[in-house]
């Protein structure tokens, strides 16, 4: 029953003062949100190229270590779970921001940043372990394509964390009122995109390696 009421509220809001609706544009979508969607469409192709190159070279390394020597599926599954949970906290942050609850927005933004940072910490640990096991960036074709692909993703997550921290500091200074909740939503789009890309990378690199 309460779910229905909540849904009704959100629906009503979208007609009146839902900040995502911008009456001054041809589509009703604000420039920044549309711009972010367009950027993410482009970013898909960047990852697409790196993933294609990785798949093309999968199993062609002339010397070891090979993926099965160094990949630790249980560990990376855990860090994947952490990253996916950060999408949940991001959703909660966006929702709190739209409701104008600034303290709760900050809380969830910080939680998202911490989860993202944990993922990055996991990646640093993973890379270090692989290096100790003999897989450097220049060791073989697998090392180059693996570290480049996952590294690019890591850089994306890091940029996301910086953006989240900027949002947090804006919120502390009172620069993130309800009227500007869409900023949180737009950064959220980026964050979710980075998570979705990781699902693909996790599948093709970790789960179906040769």
């Amino acid at each position, binding site marked *: 029953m309460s779910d229905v009421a909540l849904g009704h509220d959100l629906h009503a809001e979208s007609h009146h003062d839902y900040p995502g609706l911008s009456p*001054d*544009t*041809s*589509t009703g*979508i604000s*420039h920044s949100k*549309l*711009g972010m969607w*367009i*950027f993410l*469409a*482009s*970013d*898909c*192709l*960047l990852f*697409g*190229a*790196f993933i*294609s*190159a990785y798949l*093309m*070279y999968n199993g*062609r*390394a*002339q010397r070891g270590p090979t993926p099965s020597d160094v990949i630790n599926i249980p560990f990376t599954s855990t860090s994947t779970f952490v990253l996916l949970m950060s999408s949940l906290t991001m959703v909660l942050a966006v929702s709190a921001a739209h409701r104008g609850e600034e303290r709760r927005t900050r809380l969830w933004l910080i939680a998202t940043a911490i989860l993202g940072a944990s993922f990055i910490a996991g990646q640093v640990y993973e890379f270090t372990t692989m290096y100790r096991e003999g897989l450097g*960036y*220049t060791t*073989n*074709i697998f*090392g*180059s*394509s693996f570290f*480049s692909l996952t590294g*690019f993703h890591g850089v994306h997550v890091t940029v996301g964390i910086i953006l989240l921290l*900027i949002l947090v500091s804006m919120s502390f*200074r*009172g*620069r993130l*009122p309800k*009227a*500007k909740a869409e900023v949180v939503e737009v950064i959220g789009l980026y964050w979710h995109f980075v998570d979705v890309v990781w699902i693909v990378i996790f599948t093709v690199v970790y789960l179906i390696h040769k």
Partner: protein
Amino acid sequence: MAIVEAPRPLVIPEPVLPASGPMGVFKRPTKTTGWRSWATTIDHKKIGKMYGFMSIVFFIIGGCEALLIRTQLATPNGTLLSAQVYNEMFTMHGTTMIFLVVMPLGVAFMNYFVPLQIGARDVAFPRLNAFGFWTFLAGGIILNSSWILGGAPDNGWYNYAPNSLVTFAPTHGIDFWTVGLLTTGIASLVTAINMITTIINMRAPGMTWFKVPVFTWMSLVGQFMLLFAIPVLTAAQFMLLFDRRFGANYFEVSQGADPLLWQHLFWIFGHPEVYIMIMPAFGLTSDIIPVFSRKPLFGYKVMVISGIAIGFLGWGVWAHHMFTSGMGPVSNAAFAVGSMTIAIPTGVKIFNWMGTMWRGQIRFTTAMLFAVGMFTMFMLGGVSGITHAISPADTQQHDTYYVVAHFHYVLFGGAALVFFGAFYYWWPKIFGHMLNENLGKWNFWLMMAGFNLTFGPQHILGLQGMPRRVYTYLPGYGWELWNMVSTIGSYILAFSVLIFIINVVYSRRKAHAAGQYTCDPDPWDGRTLEWITTSPPPEFDFWEIPDVRDLDEAWHRKYAEDENGRVVRVAKIEDVMDKPTGVIPHMPSPSYWPLVAAFGMLFIGYGIIFSLALCAVGGFLLFVSLVAWGIEPSTEPGVHPVEPLTPDSGESGVAHEIHEVGANV
């Protein structure tokens, strides 16, 4: 005056500003003249002019490189250039012309005219627009500085790996190429995001998709292609950069790498790229021909849809650049069929341009001559393109001068010619005075003669077996005559460009002598929205955002059918033009940060090539400027950046008063 009677406040909605004041290191710039106004401008028209100016500068640089190439090849056993310098010369010629001339020239026209054609006051992200320009310039500087910093890239504009690895290309040349184009790639990406958002989101009320002018439509299609093509090139360039700088193995064949990886990634970018370059040119031709035929564009919707079809099909043809790479018969056949298919929507366009001229009242102004020249020359290039699509024939033509002839017919004969036409067409709109038509006709005919003499014979040379990228050749192959003709043609072509520059200077002097804004606001009897505002337009483009009822809105405001169904003029342009309302619209303020951020990009670029310490400096600059950019409001409260442009200075008081009220709300 009518000005006082229109008190409707046409103010861009105020951003909801936080209670605290704006932050920043620099005081917000307010100048509207002098170098500072150009360095900090976020006005799409000024940025468009800067794109145009820099494109012409790079065009002259790339043209000089072409002349050196042609002079070297004029006679057998040429000694002007060494083999190494020749390689650098053709690499830089191709890279410059593609990334620093044709692409930014298209962006120059888009920047200036897309907002005007859709009835908007600026682009969606004005500061990002400025950042795009300065980053493009940084990329151009990085690329061209390679001449004095240890040698230019020498591997062709497509830069095939593994030939571009350190083993085979030990100088920094390839690094300049990679970093320079990564930088211009970032510029292209942000411009694409900006233009797409602008066109989707900022059309004037009533401008539904099938009332959008064709130039804007084709720009949209081209920018969508760019949006998806540029990240693929970026990825390939990162791989190459990592191989060269950090010892990665993406293209190291001894480690099991496949040389075809680079070719595929490059041409997945590279073939859409040719449509990215030609799309704005298609749009310009489609806008110019109806104006000078005094007829609506024949088959407007089909034109738009065929443009979109090219936008999709353009993704399925890239491997026709690789027919000789041994991909196998299935791939060759599939890409051959794909490449032939794309001729259909392109052919539709050619027929529709002819259909527009058919029984029109044609005025052969310089702009019209260039537009007609564009589609005839482009068609010749298209026909030789079809011969490339036949993969067995292509095996014979591959890497010969036949290919050089083909792509110069589509890129120079297609894109460059109509860009010159667009200069003649839009010059009065941009600068308030016309370019001289007599000199313009000399410019056109000499350019046509020079162009055909340069590239026509190269078909023959190619079919006689003269390979591309040879720095000299021996006598006795039968190549002497046509090489000499081609070289003579290239000098005629260069002379025609010189006439254009003389025309620009001459027309400007003449106009200044006669009082600057001398021309009719609507000199060609134009059809699209840019002609209903003044020439040059005010900083905010339109006093009042126009209500659009028709495709070719400006034309429909001037003409109507009488009771016999004949088209008659019902209004003068002065009557239907955008008129001062007395309220200066509230525009975003200029900003230093896009320029500072682009400086950061410049440092990062040189840092990647020479020393990572420079990267730290650049990264710091970039980070600080992006944060400052994010914090400063897009419009500075309490500052009105617009000087009143109308002669009656009394208006500015009204405007400021209303503005102050707006800011306090």
